[in-house]
Structures are given as structure tokens and as C-alpha cells.
């Protein structure tokens, strides 16, 4: 799951692991960005068990396999009824039911084997982040500036200019194009754009971990149940020292009704059966309203703690009551045998929710950064031959960078031409 900095040439041998199975120094080597220069597998015969497990965990093959397995298992979970739904289906009558049930297929997303696969993915991600972080940080904050001539010349996009031109003049052209310039000890320069893009892939994977951590926290310390509260009654809220009173459950339907002049108008039906309609429509309703659909469920709730009222609110679907980390949602309703209307509330407490949301926002930010702000790097140096060498690469959007690079080299040419002209006079 971790993103590799060195992108191999199209169709070339693909690295199956991320980051450090190869020494860091080799990653920094002149042509290390070309995968062929990396040490072969044969060069690491005796590895300790721990290292071997680590290499297994950071392999992209494992991560992609896990994604694939999760996708396939999830499909099974959407085909077979899950949780309570299975009791309303024909499955309990099937001869396969007991077998499937033992396997946990009817509660698949919470079965030990599904959670194990998710856990393995989390492990793999953590190992990848751990593995990538040092090189990424170094790459972003301490990039390599002093490079050899061949390194510049071997970049995917490279150009050289006739002698007499200065590195500083070329750097000025890049600065105008919003590149940040860094000068090295030997006078070489590195012009960069979007250097934090590299961090984005790490923070993206980190966000994944935050979401997983939030989910685990919710699973371990959270609770979640439905609470039936009959109209006008006070009920204890389990897992808390609160009581909840249902002052009034209400519902409305919206539907159509036929008028005596043949027109159909929209009407509302209240809980007691009263039909409400727009008086401007005129005419009289014939028969019963039809096509009724629920348009409102609400409960006037009051919460008590130690006998004292602490909050009152009319909750609706999409508008819950939140108090001390416990949330009360309008879920449904029921009618008991004596005719009392019972409001059914969903009560829950998920301590990890904030982590999940932080993870979600970090994820959105990281994806945007990683995909839309490519890291463009251009090295500039005066070569041994006396020519000005420039060479650059990007991690995304090669075509866009190519256009940028062509404009830059054209500008540098123009600039050099002017300088040469100035020298002549």
C-alpha cells in the first residue's frame, strides 16, 4: 500500500516491495531512479525471521492481494443477507443454513476471518508507513542537490546549452515559473514544485489507519441498541445514568387524493387520520387518499439525569439529539396491542467517531495533494564540458511536465541569447 518514489520505466521490471529492502544509499545513487540499478534479490540471502515478516508485510503484492480479497468477500456479504435480515429471509429453511452460519457468512463483516483480513491490511499499511517515512522525510526536507553530470543528463527530460551561460540565469527563469530553488555546495541547483506531494502518500495511508483505529475504538468501547419508548412514558437509558421520556411521537404521510371534479391533488395525512390539503385547490375530496408515503417521524424527547431534566428536543430522522457523547436517533415506531404508540429510538455511543472523521478529512486532503500537485524536480548545473545541463522529472502527469519543461528550455534559450548579445556589445 505504499507509494514508491522511483517510478520504473514503462513496461520495465516492476519493484515488488516498497522502500528499504534496498539500502537507502542505493536509492540516492545517480541512476537509482532506474530500477535496473537496484541490487538483485539474490544479494540478500540470510534474513532474520523478523525482517522476512517485515518484507512480506511491506510488499505491494500483499497489499493489492488484500484489497482484492476484501473486495471479493464484501461482494459475498452483499449477496447473502446479513445480521437480522437473515431471519426475515428464506435462508433459515435451507439445508446449508447451519453450515453457512457456522462459517459466519450471515454476519460476515464482523466474523473473525473478515476482521483478520482487515487487521492484516492495517499491519501491512503500518509497516509501509514505518518503512517509507524516513526516506520520504529526507526526500522532502533534505533533497539531493549536488549531483553528477550523468545524473542530470539521464533524467527523463534533459537539455543542455552552449557554454558561457550561468546557472543563476537559468534558475531565474524557473523562479519566474514558481519553482522553489535550492543551491547546493558545488553550485548545482534544484528547482522544485509540489515537494509536499511526497508526504501526501504517507499521510493518505496514515488517514486509513486513523479510520481503522476509530472503528476499533467504537467497536471495543462503544454501544449501540434500539430503545422502545411508549408515548408518555419514562424509560431508563442503558449504559448511562439517564432516563428518557417520550412526550409525543408524531408521524405524517404525504399522498394524493381525488377531487370531485376529477383532479388529483397532493394531501397530507396526520397520525390521527385527518387529511390536510391546500384550501386554494377548491373542490371536495372523494374517497380515501392514496399513494401515501411517510414524510415525517418525530418524537418530543426529554432527558433526565438524577431526576432532573437536562434537555428537551423534538428529534426527527436526520435530526438526532446528542448529549454527553450519547446520541438518540429516531429509528422507527411500533403500535403495542393496547393501541399505545411506541417510538423506537436508536441509541448509541461511538467514542472513535472523531478519529474516523479526522481520518476522513486527512484522506481527502492527501488524495488532492497527491494527485493534483505533482512533485516536479529540475536539476541545474554547469557540466564538466562547460555546458549548462538541465534535467528534470515528475512523479505525475508526464505530459503536463513535458509542456512546462519545453517552455522553460525555450525561455532559457531566449535568456542566454540576450545575455550573449549583451556580452558582444
Amino acid at each position: 500500500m505504499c507509494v514508491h518514489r522511483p517510478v520504473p520505466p514503462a513496461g520495465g521490471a516492476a519493484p515488488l516491495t516498497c522502500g528499504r529492502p534496498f539500502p537507502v544509499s542505493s536509492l540516492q545513487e545517480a541512476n537509482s531512479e532506474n530500477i535496473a540499478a537496484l541490487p538483485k534479490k539474490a544479494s540478500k540471502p540470510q534474513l532474520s525471521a523478523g525482517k522476512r515478516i517485515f518484507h512480506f508485510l511491506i510488499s505491494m503484492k500483499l497489499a493489492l492481494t488484500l484489497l482484492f480479497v476484501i473486495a471479493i468477500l464484501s461482494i459475498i456479504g452483499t449477496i447473502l443477507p446479513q445480521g437480522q435480515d437473515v431471519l426475515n429471509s428464506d435462508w433459515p429453511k435451507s439445508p446449508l443454513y447451519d453450515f453457512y452460519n457456522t462459517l459466519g457468512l450471515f454476519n460476515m463483516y464482523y466474523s473473525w476471518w473478515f476482521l483478520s483480513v482487515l487487521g492484516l491490511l492495517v499491519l501491512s499499511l503500518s509497516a509501509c508507513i514505518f518503512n517509507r517515512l524516513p526516506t520520504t522525510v529526507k526526500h522532502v526536507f533534505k533533497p539531493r542537490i549536488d549531483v553528477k553530470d550523468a545524473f542530470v543528463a539521464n533524467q527523463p527530460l534533459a537539455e543542455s546549452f552552449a557554454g558561457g551561460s550561468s546557472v543563476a540565469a537559468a534558475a531565474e527563469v524557473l523562479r519566474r515559473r514558481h519553482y522553489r530553488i535550492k543551491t547546493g555546495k558545488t553550485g548545482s541547483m534544484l528547482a522544485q514544485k509540489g515537494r509536499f506531494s511526497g508526504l501526501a502518500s504517507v499521510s493518505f495511508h496514515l488517514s486509513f489507519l486513523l479510520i481503522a483505529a476509530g472503528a476499533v475504538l467504537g467497536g471495543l468501547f462503544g454501544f449501540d441498541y434500539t430503545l422502545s419508548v411508549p408515548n408518555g412514558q419514562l424509560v431508563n437509558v442503558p449504559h448511562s445514568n439517564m432516563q428518557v421520556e417520550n412526550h409525543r411521537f408524531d408521524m405524517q404521510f404525504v399522498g394524493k387524493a381525488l377531487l370531485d371534479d376529477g383532479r388529483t391533488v397532493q394531501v397530507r395525512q396526520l397520525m390521527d387520520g385527518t387529511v390536510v390539503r391546500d384550501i386554494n385547490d377548491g373542490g371536495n375530496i372523494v374517497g380515501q387518499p392514496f399513494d401515501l408515503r411517510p414524510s415525517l417521524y418525530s418524537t418530543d424527547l426529554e432527558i433526565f439525569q438524577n431526576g432532573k431534566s437536562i434537555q428537551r428536543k423534538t428529534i426527527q430522522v436526520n435530526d438526532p439529539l446528542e448529549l454527553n457523547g450519547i446520541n438518540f436517533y429516531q429509528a422507527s415506531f411500533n403500535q403495542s396491542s393496547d393501541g399505545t404508540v411506541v417510538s423506537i429510538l436508536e441509541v448509541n455511543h461511538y467514542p472513535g467517531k472523531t478519529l474516523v472523521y479526522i481520518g476522513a478529512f486527512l484522506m481527502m486532503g492527501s488524495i488532492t495533494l497527491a494527485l493534483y500537485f505533482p512533485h516536479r524536480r529540475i536539476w541545474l548545473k554547469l557540466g564538466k564540458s562547460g555546458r549548462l545541463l538541465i534535467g528534470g522529472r515528475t512523479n505525475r502527469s508526464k505530459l503536463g511536465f513535458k509542456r512546462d519543461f519545453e517552455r522553460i528550455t525555450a525561455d532559457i534559450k531566449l535568456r542566454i541569447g540576450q545575455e550573449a548579445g549583451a556580452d558582444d556589445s
Partner: protein
Amino acid sequence: MIVKLEEILFIVTVLTYLVASGVYIWHLISNSQKAGQLGTMLLVLGLFAHTMALIFRWVDSGHAPMSDSYESLAVFSWGIVLFYLIMERIYAIRAAGAVVVPTAFIIASIALVLNKGPNPLVPALQSYWLWIHVSIAMLSYGFFALAFGAGFFYIIQEHLLKKHYQNVVIAFVIMFSVLGLAVGLWLGFGVWAHPLDIVDPVTKEHSNQYSGTDIIKIIGGGGIGLAIGVLLGFLAGKGASKPGFARRLPSLDVLDEVSYRAIAFGFPMVTIGIITGAIWADKAWGRYWSWDPKETWSLITWLFYGAYLHTRLTWGWRGRHSAVIAVLGIVIVLFTYLGVNYLLSGLHTYASA
């Protein structure tokens, strides 16, 4: 009054798109500039009528037109046409109109058939998250469709350049037959089959019950769609198997880049779609994630395109490999968008109402 006007406007829209489709195809075949300009003019007119129809629908129902299949598809086709017209203005890609405009026509005409008039929103949908969540989700579907189109033409272009005309025909037949099968099955489910509408006496919640004849209609729909797809694919493949056609298509590099760029836009969109959905579900049902089929399939879509990005950005896959993944992705997207609503039950089932 206002409802009738909306329906008339939408019929005008669909008819205009039909004529525009013909003109765009004529433009591709004849390369006539006049035809191209006429096509654009018709498309702009159609988009105007389409926009008015959607506005009337919005005013009439009192909520963003995204609550059922008609509204969702009407907005989707509107987005395709708008996006295409912008693209046409920026890049000179009128040839692509021969594919895009008929697609928009097919989607709009299916919407027309499914229109059952405006309905009040069930309580769970009464939230401003409706239009945020749905429009972002549909935007992501649109980008994945674009990635599919570019990926498909990458494969076609590659075979054309190698003069493997037999493979060109096979590729066209496979694509058209899969799409034909999907559209046919879905027509069977959504239009031809008339399941028993079962209304819970107390809650007035609706659910569907399919009879044997319905199943035959659904399978029949799939069969007819498949047959038409194979025929159209064969004709299109034969028609495209000319050296001249390769010159009309963009270069392999451009197709590869467009396909990747579309996924690079679609992936964040589907991420935001899932996250806004989670926030909304949290507000409505008290759970940000319940493994509902729609949620699960959107996760599968997310995993799939996440894997695409990894193979591309980490393993450096390009060209044909990436194109094949982008093409396969559309099957998952179609299932997430439509298949889940008709084939699987869950919290999102009101979407098929």
C-alpha cells in the same frame, strides 16, 4: 400545469438529443464542418430545454431532483452534455461527440420512460446532504465512465495501429454486448417488470415482489440487450476497421493520459462521496458505516480504483494494462450505480422507487 410543462420540456430534450446524435455521427463519417456546427447548436438547445425541465421539476417537488431513478438519470445525462460541451469548447474533440451524445440520449430516454412524476421525500432523504452526496457520487461515476471510454479507445487504437482488425471487432463486440446486457437487464427490472407493490399497513413503507412473468421479462430484456449489443458491436467494429479511423482517434499517449486523469479526478470524488454518505448516515441512522450493499459496493469501487492508482503510481503500469483496468472498472461502477438498487436490498432501496 407546471408538471405538464416539465414533461413536455423533457420530451423535447430527448428528441433534440436524438437528432443531435444523428448529426454528430454524420459529422464523424463525413467530416463536414457544417454538420459539426449544427450538432453543437442542437446540443446547446437540448441542454437548455433539459435545464428548464430540471428546474421545473425542482420547483414542483420542492427538493433537489436526485431522489429517484428518473431524477438521478436526468441529472446524470444533463451533466454529461454540459461537461461534453465545455470540453468541446476547450479542445477540438467533436469526433468524440459521436459516442458521447448518443450515450446521453440513451440515458435521458431511459429516464423519460422511468418518470413517475414527483414524489415527496421519505424522512431519511430529507436532508441537504441529499444533493451534496448524490451529485458528488454521480460526478465520480461520470469520470469513471470517461476513463472507461478513453481506455476502450486506447485498446482499439493499439489494435488499429498494429492492423489487428479482428481484435478491433472483438473489442467492440465485447463492449457493446456487456453494455447491451446491462441496459437490457435494467430495462427489464425498471420498466417491463411490474412487481407487486407491497405497502406495510402501518408504516406505509413500500417493497417489491417479483412474479415468474417478471423474471421472464427481466431475462428477456437481458437477452434482447445482449443480442442488440453483439450486432451493434460487430457493425461498429467492422466500420472502425480502417486505417483512416486510427487517424481520427487521439494518439495512444493522449488516450492513456486522459484515462488516468479521469480516474485521478474520479477517485477523490468517490472518496468524498463515501465520506459525505458516512456523515449523512451518521446523522440519519446513527451509524457512519453499516455495510449496506450500496456502501459496500462503493467501497469495492474505491478499492478497485485505489488498486489502479497503485499499479500505476507504484508499479509504473501504463498503456494497455491501465486501459484494461479502466475498462473493467465500468462494470463495478454500473453495478454500484444501478445494479445495487435493483438486485440487492438495503438501506438505499428507496433509490429504485
